[in-house]
């Protein structure tokens, strides 16, 4: 399974990539912001996008809205990653069409399992 990880922090991208590839055995590609995410999504056609929420220039939710406007990319499931996990905010992300939310800081050993659980609860 190919996962696109979008985060503006280089260290998080490195850690996240290692977690997805070495621990989760996924294929991982990364983007450093909302604009690059759109480009990478088009080029790579991932099976899942792990999207950070707070990014400068174009934030996660805005990028998601734009993604949904592109017919070929509409169906890609999105999981948000964020430090803000109040109930109201989670509801907001789900309303945008995300299939799940993973809180930060995340445990790189647990991240792949969390992703698998979210995919499974979707009903595959």
């Amino acid at each position, binding site marked *: 399974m190919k996962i696109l990880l979008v985060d503006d922090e280089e*260290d998080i991208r490195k850690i996240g990539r*290692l977690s997805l590839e070495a621990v989760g055995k996924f294929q991982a590609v990364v983007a450093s912001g909302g604009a690059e995410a759109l480009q990478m999504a088009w080029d790579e056609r991932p099976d899942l996008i792990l999207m950070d929420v707070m990014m400068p220039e174009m934030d996660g939710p805005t990028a998601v809205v734009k993604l949904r406007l592109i017919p070929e990319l509409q169906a890609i499931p999105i999981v948000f990653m964020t430090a*803000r996990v109040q109930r109201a905010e989670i509801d907001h992300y789900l309303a945008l069409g995300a299939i799940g939310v993973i809180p930060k800081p995340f445990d790189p050993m647990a991240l792949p399992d969390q992703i698998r659980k979210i995919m499974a609860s979707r009903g595959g």
Partner: protein
Amino acid sequence: MKKPDTPADELQRLDKLRQYQILDTAPESAFDDLTKLAAYVAGVPIALVSLIDADRQWFKSRYGLEVPETPRDVSFCGHVVGSGAALTVPDALADPRFADNPLVTGAPEIRFYAGTPLVTPDGFTLGTLCTIDVRARQLSPEQDALLKVLARQVVDQLERRRQTRVLQAQQAQLARNMQQTSDAVSLLRGILKNANVSVIETTPSGTIRVFNAAAERMLGYSAEELVGQASPAILHDPAEVAARAIELSTELGVPVEPGFDAFVAKARRGTADEGEWTYIRKDGSRFPVLLSVTARRGARGEIVGYLGIASDISERKRVERLQSEFVSTVSHELRTPLTAIRGALGLLAAGVTGALPVQAKEYVDIAVSNSDRLVRLINDILDIDKIRSDDVTFKFMTIPVGNAVKHAIAANAAFAAQYAVRLELVGDPAAGDVRADPDRLAQVLTNLISNAAKFSPTDASVELAVTRRDGRIRVTVRDHGPGIPDAFRGRIFQRFAQADTSNTRQRGGTGLGLSISKAIIEKMDGLIGFEPAPGGGTEFYFELPCLPAVGTTAPAAAGAFRILVCEDDPDLAGALERLLNRHGFSVDLSPTIERARQLLASEHYDAMTLDLMLADGHAGALVRELRASEATRQLPIIVVSCVDAPAGSVASLVNDIIPEPLDESRLVAAINKATAVSGSRPGPAG
């Protein structure tokens, strides 16, 4: 000599005499003129206005006599007062009553006496107008008649004096009252003028009557522009008012008009109404206010006006916004590097980047557990800030405390086992429900249990108990540890207070648990504290107000009708229960809409009484639900003890409405009528 008799009404007579305040006053020309006239009419040298006191006769006016008074016993006038009738003594020496009277045998050597009683309008004889001569004689009938006329004049004078005095006293009182009123008005004016809050008062229909100086400053209107001419609605945003009207309609169960009605709907019902609104100045600029609206009522309880007091909360809102932005920013800024640290360490520790030398692994593990600790700390700080600043919504529900404690014991058993500590529930938990957020309540119990476990010696037990005291439920968590050091007692609920810094790492914890627990319990209207436990250790406790009991009470007589009484005031609930039991009904009680729903779903009732305002809100929606459901469409519903008669749809859905104060016989009659109609008794839980 015969002494004068004392009349039967002597005490009242003396009292009456005092009221004239005439005794021992200086001579006055009005009276002296009359005695002179009397002497001339009778052709005698002496004429007196004599007033009979307890033991003396005292002369207000004495024509031809120097002496101001004599003892009553020897007075001739005393006899007039004693008998109430006029007295004529033509020759005192020939009269056995007076022949040896000192005033006859000695000065002034009275021989002739004629005295007419001075009688007050209400019939008391105060004294006489008398004429005296040193020679024996008689008066003609005309002279007698004239003396009676003069006596009436004397009484007139006495009356006039008395009335003047009364009037003067009244005037003095009026002047004092006016001064008081004037002082009160000054004071109130001063308060209105100098108060730092906007005070706006309106007529019942919404026209502004008072617009104080602070309101003028805050809003940019002058009082003259608005008083008598405008409604406070012009100070508000119509969209905001309309939205609030809709909210209120739902909350109160009655339609609320957008407009002045929205401001006063709650105040009209006697409910406290304080909320945040936007005020719009004359120049169109806006600012947030905290507005409190109350209704003013007259002697008969009718509304005579509305009072709106508003304070500018711009500053407070600015600070709130900064705070919540700060919390969000800090949250993100702290968590971002932590994510990287924790992430990198996690990968290292798990050997994903390759096997680590043993010692390296040991230190990496230290780094991992500390960054976990940092994450918990940040979470706790943000948690307590959220609870304090009201950002966290508590989801209140009715919770049986005994169950919550049992759950907490089960959930924390494994944790306690790590310290070789047993958790025990001592005694039967007292029955009782509280209104609380279940997750937060669990959080408090976990906090207290984990503290107790951490500070217990190995193999000890931590005992929990649930008791009930005066309408409050008390949960205690007792450990057999070393106890709280004296120096620490005052600070224990403060943030980051940890007694034993040397051991903190071993104990874990962030030092925030108790202050979070305190914030949670206080938010639920309870209190939290601790006491040294007898025999060593500490007993932590928290208390929460208890809801009135729900459920069946006295055993139902077979075939008795079952009534569900929905009432959250414990005294009234008890009274209704006893009343209905006395009349042969079996009663279940519910203080909340939520419980009522549960009971109605699982039990059969022949009728229900309903207080529209229950512990968890307005029951209008419940009534509509019941009527919409087949099972309860016909259930007789009697609304009891409402402050304001429900208008509109709710009123038409219920069978009867019994207002405050409760007429017991009317309630019983209504229930009898309802249960007669509901007919035969079907089986349980339909």
